[in-house]
């Protein structure tokens, strides 16, 4: 089980959290300008690296807030957690 550092509440066990998928996936500002390839990428394609991965978590059984985590997907070590809107470390 991961020990996840919530930027608002501090380190808490993983069972308090819900995983929110890859972070920094941005919906186009003007959807009418997005072609089929762009929509396919936005809807279905995600980074699946063996190594550093930026991902969203929500402290579902705590403060309830979303935040981002940088985790190594091979070692499962969490390298950083940061608030939504902050730049990726």
């Amino acid at each position, binding site marked *: *089980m991961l020990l996840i550092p919530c930027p608002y509440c501090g380190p808490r066990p993983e069972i308090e959290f819900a995983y929110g998928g890859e972070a920094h996936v941005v919906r186009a500002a003007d959807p009418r300008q997005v072609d089929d390839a762009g929509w*396919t990428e936005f*809807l279905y394609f*995600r980074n699946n690296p*063996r190594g550093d991965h930026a*991902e969203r978590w929500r402290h579902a059984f705590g403060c309830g807030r979303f935040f981002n985590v940088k985790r190594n997907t091979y070692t499962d070590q969490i390298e950083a957690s940061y608030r939504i809107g902050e730049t990726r470390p």
Partner: protein
Amino acid sequence: MQRYSALALLKQTLQNHKGWQPQWRDPEPKRAYDAIIIGGGGHGLGAAYYLARKHGIRNVAVLEKGWIGGGNTGRNTTIIRSNYLFDESAALYDHALDLWEGLSQELNYNVMFSQRGVLMIAHNVHDEQSFKRHVYSNRLNGVDNAWLTPEQAKAFCPPLNIAPGMRHAVTGAALQRRAGTARHDAVAWGYARAADALGVDIIQNCEVTGIDRDASGRVTGVQTTRGAIASRKVGVSAAGSTSLVMEMAGLRMPLESYPLQALVSEPLKPIFPCVVMSNTIHAYISQSDKGELVIGAGTDAYVSYSQRGALHIATHTLEAICELFPIFRRMRMMRNWGGIVDVTPDRSPILGKTPVPGLYVNCGWGTGGFKATPGAADLFAHTIARDDPHPINAPFNLERFGAGRLIDEAAAAAVAH
């Protein structure tokens, strides 16, 4: 190939078993092959076997970075069934089931295929509606599946607890009698031995580090930890590592890799006659011929390549097992492990050509690849040999996401992910 039979066993017994030969060679990689398969699991070894036997392409190498059958082939819970909802999936998984039925004879290798039946337990109205819909859809597709009352389910599987006081009471079950289990290691070994006998080189401890392409973009070979190997056809059958291998050819895949866990108990006398799955409280269980209870747990919530899962996931499954089968409450678990499963957005596999000429992919089986092993291998070999998919695997192409022709089997995949 040294054929196995009762007579061969008797002959070897008289010679103190000193005449058994290795089941496959350990060759050095050649400079070039007609086809290369990346990944020596059941799917990859099977594809090499069918390329050699059905399509006459015998100059084939299977490249495996570890040892054959050491990935998900050796880590799954060996369940085989074909009761999927949609026409495309029913055809795909039933094709595999057809091949399973003759596999031991075909390979001259006992894969211990046992059609002991798979019982999928319903716990609420939603389960009943969903399972009955599957039963009716399966019947229309000629796939056997039947609805049982709780009493009928208990008659089929006596250890099952159907007491009304349970937190998640059993309200019925869907039973596929033709489904069952097989010995997973034997599937990899049987295909390896049969493929080797037809001339296929099985090269272990050989990790692919790059995919070579010419100016037109066509595949020309691979770079490996044991040198460069040329080939105009490369099939990727690398399960959880598919995204990483495809990236070597500059292709992004609609896949995410998650750890999936399983565990086995201490061995018991025969007690458990079938396979039982519960999607809702999330457990699946069967008993191996060695006597261990084989228990499947869930995936972790997050992308990971760690090949081990979190303990709370296994705990959750064991809680469900203890409620469904109170008889097992004092059992001790012996081993617990994880494998990395590659999951697509629609929970259906990708099996076909890619935008890179000469590069083929068989991936995205998520938590349910073992059951499809012979079918997927056969269809993958067909696709590679003809450079054109078979009608059964044609719908499982990479383009379906952009085209919006998804095959959404999220409800049929037993593991919630």
